[in-house]
């Protein structure tokens, strides 16, 4: 019986039992549905084994949206619990679990997946490539991320969720103070999906450096591709730090080592240090692609070239370096002297300079432009003021002397949400709406989209601005309740109403997807936005090989030049195209990783070893496999192209 007791939830509640039942019922429904409609083969052939960057991008997108709703429900429950003083909706333990999973799910499994989804779909198209450099590894990346996300979410119903915050500071996260397996899940799930992210990083750097269309020098790359390059550079150098920190944390919990303990020389602060050595660059991993999306959207809908291209690139390069030297500002109050804090204060404030340059570049791009208020543009316009408020309060927090006042209060919570939501979430929705026609062949409804924007922008302001005030009044973050005499009640109620507004906005987006899928016109041409970069030069829907003829590029706006200045993108005739083969190995290997992670969480060592052998067997299979891909014949290209109405510039 002991064996099974470990899998029980330590603090069960009706909500968790309901979730268990819902998960079982949904799983049964999916299995029955797939069997009834005979879709297993389709799912395996077209999706699970695919190495096509476009399909992998769409799978990332679906996963990210699912995680958005998981994290969103956590957020709503938090705001509901604190909406009134002395509320008893959740107890302290549940509240702890929810703010922990909210943070991890939103950062790692939602935002990361969302940016990687868009990078996957868009970057190869923007640089005129047929796929990424290592298509098979791309599938490995996705499935590792997916299995990591599933493992993390499993903690909710088997064994208990982590509850020591998304930062999992030791000694709280050690096995003495967090005895349930929740934090094991945290360590293993992040480790597995982090591995996938690292592989993505390497893959995209090589793709961007080696697979650009002829004529596209580095300084002629579209801005989203530039931001992708810099982001992946940061990924490659930041994620190994997380790998090491998580491995050390796992060993502390499972093998009684003494890295972060408070006995035998262990140093709990080292965890905080390593976590933020990764954690701060991570912030820029999320924000830089968002900046790239805004650059594309603002330039397209202002009908102007991006202002200050060179300074945009330079500021991103500077941000990528500075992002690695500011991490101490996350724990100014935890024991360093004035000297150290001053150094990191200065580096922190320095990073506002390149960011400010970008803001002015966007404003100057719009200056005298013919602005079209489409939904992606609305998000970009909403982003600038809200993000600036979030950003300048960050400079306040960055002053180490003043930080003693703000640290760990709701002021901080307001700051980072007002950076991340307009910075990342708005950009994701803008990018989703902008590239949606390229992905699915129809446009999202503009009217519903505008309503959704209204609710989301208004909800964001209403939810987070009051936290500045309650934070300065002394409300600490992560408190599950407070007494009426504190006076926090009013501000928290406003936040709750704002959170409801956000929820309505996201529901409207889902409704928009449903509505547009049913009713939107499929006859939109290849370039519905009158856009500027190469992804719009191929067909809707994009054929498997992306471009029948490799495009010739002459500027950072090659497609715009081909439309306005008579530049010829596609020269010459069709040639045979070489494409990679599908493979089930990435999926199978990731399943082994999932089993490995699960076994590790519950210290089932035999299972762990067996699954590790399975992982190595998959690698061995790949090494000895003779896979030279397949070729698409000229006749087949001609057939596809004539179906898609022929290449544009012939």
């Amino acid at each position, binding site marked *: 019986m002991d064996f099974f007791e470990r899998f029980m939830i330590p603090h069960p509640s009706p909500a968790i039992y309901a979730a268990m039942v819902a998960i079982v019922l949904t799983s049964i429904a999916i299995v029955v549905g797939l069997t009834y409609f005979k879709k297993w083969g389709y799912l395996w052939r077209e999706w699970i084994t695919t190495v096509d960057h476009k399909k992998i991008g769409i799978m990332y997108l679906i996963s990210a949206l699912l995680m958005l709703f998981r994290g969103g429900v956590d957020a709503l429950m938090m705001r509901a619990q604190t909406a009134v003083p002395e509320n008893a909706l959740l107890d302290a333990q549940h509240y702890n679990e929810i703010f922990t999973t909210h943070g991890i799910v939103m950062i790692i499994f939602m935002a990361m997946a969302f940016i990687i989804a868009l990078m996957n779909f868009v970057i190869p198209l923007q640089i005129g490539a047929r796929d990424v450099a290592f298509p098979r590894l791309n599938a490995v990346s996705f499935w590792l991320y997916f299995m990591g996300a599933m493992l993390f979410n499993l903690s909710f119903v088997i064994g208990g969720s982590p509850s020591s915050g998304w930062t999992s500071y030791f000694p709280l996260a050690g096995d003495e103070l967090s005895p349930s397996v929740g934090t094991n899940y945290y360590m293993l799930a992040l480790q597995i999906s982090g591995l996938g992210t690292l592989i993505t990083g390497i893959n995209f750097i090589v793709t961007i450096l080696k697979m650009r269309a002829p004529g596209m020098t580095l300084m002629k790359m579209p801005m989203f591709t530039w931001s992708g390059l810099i982001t992946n550079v940061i990924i490659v150098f930041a994620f190994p730090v997380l790998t090491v920190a998580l491995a050390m944390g796992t060993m502390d919990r499972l093998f009684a080592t003494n890295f972060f303990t408070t006995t035998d020389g262990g140093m709990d602060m080292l965890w905080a240090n390593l976590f933020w*050595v990764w954690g701060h660059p991570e912030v820029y991993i999320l924000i830089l692609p968002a900046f790239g999306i805004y650059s594309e959207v603002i330039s397209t809908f202002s009908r102007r070239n991006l202002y200050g291209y060179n300074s945009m690139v330079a500021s991103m390069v500077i941000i990528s370096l500075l992002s*690695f030297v500011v991490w101490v500002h996350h724990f100014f109050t935890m024991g*360093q002297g004035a000297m150290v804090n001053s150094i990191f204060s200065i580096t922190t404030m320095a990073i506002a300079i390149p960011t400010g340059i970008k803001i002015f570049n966007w404003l100057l791009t719009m200056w005298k432009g013919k602005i079209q208020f489409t939904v992606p543009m609305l998000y970009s316009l909403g982003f600038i003021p809200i993000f600036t408020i979030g950003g300048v309060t960050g400079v306040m927090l960055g002053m180490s002397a003043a930080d003693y006042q703000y640290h760990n209060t709701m002021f901080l919570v307001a700051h980072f949400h007002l950076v991340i939501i307009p910075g990342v979430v708005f950009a994701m929705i803008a990018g989703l709406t902008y590239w949606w026609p390229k992905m699915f062949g129809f446009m999202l409804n503009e009217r519903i989209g505008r309503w959704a924007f209204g609710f989301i922008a208004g909800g964001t302001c209403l939810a987070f601005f009051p936290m500045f005030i309650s934070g300065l009044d002394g409300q600490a973050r992560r408190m599950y309740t407070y007494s009426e005499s504190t006076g926090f009640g009013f501000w928290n109620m406003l936040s709750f109403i704002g959170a409801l507004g956000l929820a309505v906005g996201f529901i409207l987006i889902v409704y928009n997807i449903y509505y547009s899928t049913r009713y939107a016109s499929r006859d939109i041409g290849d370039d519905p936005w009158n856009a500027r970069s190469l992804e719009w030069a191929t067909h809707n829907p994009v054929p498997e090989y992306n471009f029948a003829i490799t495009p010739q590029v002459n500027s950072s706006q090659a497609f715009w030049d081909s439309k306005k200045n008579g530049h010829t993108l596609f020269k010459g005739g069709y040639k045979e195209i070489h494409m990679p083969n599908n493979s089930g190995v990435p999926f199978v290997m990731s399943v082994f990783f999932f089993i490995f992670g699960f076994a590790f969480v519950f210290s089932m060592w035999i299972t762990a070893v067996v699954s590790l052998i399975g992982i190595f067997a998959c690698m061995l299979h790949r090494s000895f496999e003779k896979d030279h891909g397949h070729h698409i014949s000229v006749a087949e290209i001609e057939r596809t192209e004539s179906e898609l109405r022929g290449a544009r510039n012939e």
Partner: protein
Amino acid sequence: MKELFPIKHVMGFVFSLILTSVALLVYILDMSFALGLTILLITAFAQAALQLVVFMHAGESEDKGAIYTSVYYGIIIAVLTVFGTLLAMIWGYV
């Protein structure tokens, strides 16, 4: 047989042995901590550069710019992380 042992590689190997012997001096001889650490820093980084250029052929391909950037970037960030961590965790910790 001789063509299998190019002079560049043999010299590289000899030089790396010399560097190792020099590093060993800090163990054999009695010297100040600062001097010893300086010697170790010089020999270790020289050794790393030797491997990189002579044995790993870092500069031979069309991608040498990207390769050197990646390695230098890694080294710079790693060194900043090491010193930043020491600064925050030991030297500046009160």
